[in-house]
């Protein structure tokens, strides 16, 4: 039997209570004030996010090249038809999904281990440890991408000489000449850089597990693994799912590492890079906007799957249990 405090049940109770309460004048005034305070930020948000999204959707219906403004013409959904029937798009989607799944799974396992280390560490070293673990996350992605690129580069890298005892690695290993070797470095860099983020989210989740529950499990003779499986993980479900959702969305939009290390060459192109190359490189605003809209739809789909199918409770991270 798992031991959870039922955040959803509590949320339902809270909603039912809210329905019964008749709002007082003061409460109504506070709500109005809330809207007045949040309103400007909300409007600015709409301007800087909704407007470009709508503009991209509109542009995607046109044949529009920046250097041929006079040839602009409405073509309906033709751009989408071109993209969805092109292997370049599906290869890009496949690579993006592969990077997303592999990096999120590995980061989740490593992040959880780091979160456990941080939570169990002695108080005297806890601050130092957390800082050390957070260093990669504090580095700008482009800088970290260059660092990893130069580490593995056949001309300037040291990895080939350090690891030449590993079968398959030698002085002449060109990591960025093949799909799988390139993807390995790209994913390793991504994992190194963002595991601290997941570990922080999971550490917050760990802190929300009531000590009484683990104490009770110990008293009942539960092993470490049983405590983890029956007490800690079920009570951390909300934090884990939020971490997975945030990282999955982030990983799906991967750009910097691929751009710096391979530029999308040799089967490493991801969707963000395809959108960039089409809009910015080719100056095909219509086609590029259509790729961006499809990328946006994919992101929405991930959110939908996470929230509706996996029941991620975004409000539950504060430990509503």
């Amino acid at each position, binding site marked *: 039997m798992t031991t959870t405090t039922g955040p959803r049940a509590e949320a339902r109770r809270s909603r039912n209570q809210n329905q019964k309460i008749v709002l007082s004048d003061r409460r109504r005034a506070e709500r109005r004030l809330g809207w007045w305070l949040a309103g400007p930020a909300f409007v600015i948000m709409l301007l800087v996010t909704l407007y470009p999204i709508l503009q991209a959707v509109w542009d995607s219906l046109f*044949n529009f090249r920046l*250097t041929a403004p006079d040839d602009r013409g409405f073509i309906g959904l*033709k751009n989408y038809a071109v993209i969805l029937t092109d292997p370049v798009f599906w290869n890009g989607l496949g690579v993006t999904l592969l990077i997303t799944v592999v990096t999120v799974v590995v980061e989740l396992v490593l992040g959880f281990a780091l979160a456990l280390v941080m939570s169990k560490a002695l108080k005297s070293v806890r601050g130092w440890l957390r800082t050390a673990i957070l260093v990669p996350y504090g580095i700008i992605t482009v800088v970290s991408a260059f660092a990893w690129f130069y580490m593995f580069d056949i001309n300037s890298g040291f990895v080939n000489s350090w690891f030449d005892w590993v079968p398959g690695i030698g002085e002449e290993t*060109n990591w*960025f*000449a093949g799909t799988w070797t390139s993807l390995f470095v790209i994913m390793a860099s991504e994992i190194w850089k963002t595991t601290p983020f997941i570990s922080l989210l999971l550490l917050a989740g760990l802190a929300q597990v009531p000590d009484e529950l683990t104490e009770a499990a110990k008293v009942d003779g539960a092993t470490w693994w049983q405590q983890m499986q029956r007490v800690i993980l079920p009570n951390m479900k909300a934090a884990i799912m939020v971490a997975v959702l945030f990282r999955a969305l982030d990983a799906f939009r991967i750009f910097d590492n691929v751009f710096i290390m391979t530029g999308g*060459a040799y089967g490493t192109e991801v969707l963000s890079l395809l959108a960039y190359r089409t809009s910015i*490189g080719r*100056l095909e605003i219509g086609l590029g906007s259509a790729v961006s809209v499809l990328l946006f739809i994919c992101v929405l789909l991930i959110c939908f799957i996470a929230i509706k199918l996996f029941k991620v409770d975004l409000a539950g991270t504060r430990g509503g249990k």
Partner: protein
Amino acid sequence: MPKNQPPAAARRRRRATVVAVAAAGLLLSGCGPAEEGPPVLTWYINPDDGGQAALAQKCTADAGGDYRIEVTLLPSDASSQREQLARRLAAGDTSLDIMSLDPPFIPELAEPGFLAPVPADVAQRTTGNTLEGALAGAMWKDELVTVPFWANTQILWYRKSVAEAAGLDMSGSVTWDQIIDAARDQDKHLGVQGARAESMTVWVNALIESSGENIVTNPEATADEVRLGLESEAGRKAAEIVSTIGREGLGGPGLPTQAENESMLQFQGQRGSFMVNWPFVWPATNAGVDAGNLDASLIEDIGWGVYPQTVEGTPSAPPLGGINLGVGSESRNPELAYQAIECIVSTENQVEYFVTNGNPPSDSTAYDDPSIIEQFPMAETIRESLDQSAPRPQTPYYNEVSTGIQQNWAPPSGVDPDTTPKNTSDFITEVLRGERLL
């Protein structure tokens, strides 16, 4: 002031009002008209060793107060420079007075009218002695649309010891087949650029042009009517050369990611033999020797010649690069901009720029200057190479053509002479018709 307000509070309020007015005045003054003085011309430059900034200062001084040139730095690679300039030009940016432009991207900017026309008198005065290849790169639809500034070309660099061991007579032209055989026999590496980058198009274009064919046979056509010359004997021969070097490992293990700088490093190493590359190799190698990173004997072992022939007996058409100067059509001062350009591209300044920054002049008479001959002993080879060089396809769709080639010809080991030229041709044609993604 209200009667019930205490005097101290009133003073504070007055003080706050004065401070606010002063602050507003300071802020607004920043938005006011520009400071007095000569008109400012903005020159968007590609990164170099400070030569263009120095020329801007020099021409500002020479202008005697008619104008002042300020430089603004563009991104480091040519593609990113094109992206930024195209976006600014399309948006009607009025600050684009002078632009340093890479020749292949000029038609794309000239076709929609983004470039201000070159006045006939300026054209006459600035192109009288311009080398043929450099002049071709400044034209669009038989009209001069930019002014040639400096011209670049690839020459054949070789290690004298390797050429001697191969029994090659380097006083004349050699062919790709000869240098491939020499590298193979001596287990050396050939310095070519096999990365999926612009350098791959440079190589393929030179191979095809050296057979007397063109990648794009009707460069002025609209996107859906562009015809490609890749499916030809020249395309097949080019694919054979690239494929042989790639499949036999003659380019070294780094070939699939190797651009110009990496080729130079390989050439300087123990397995260096022959290399096609730009003249920057010479000052860079000398600097390496001066810094103690390279053996001094390396300099003695390096020779140079004109780009290898694809077909024996047919003069090669070496790659052409460089920078031309254009004026944005929305510039507020096009006349002054062309006046400044005349100053920048003067023979004297081109000599100065070559000597200080290593970028060869587009003016043929500049090569007679003793300071150039002293510092660049291969200057005559460069002039000869520039004279027989051929530009990359001069089409407004160059980006699509170039990227299509890069995607199909890199890595070199994946090139198949039977299928690659046709596949590339079909792919680019479909992309240009809007039927495929690139």
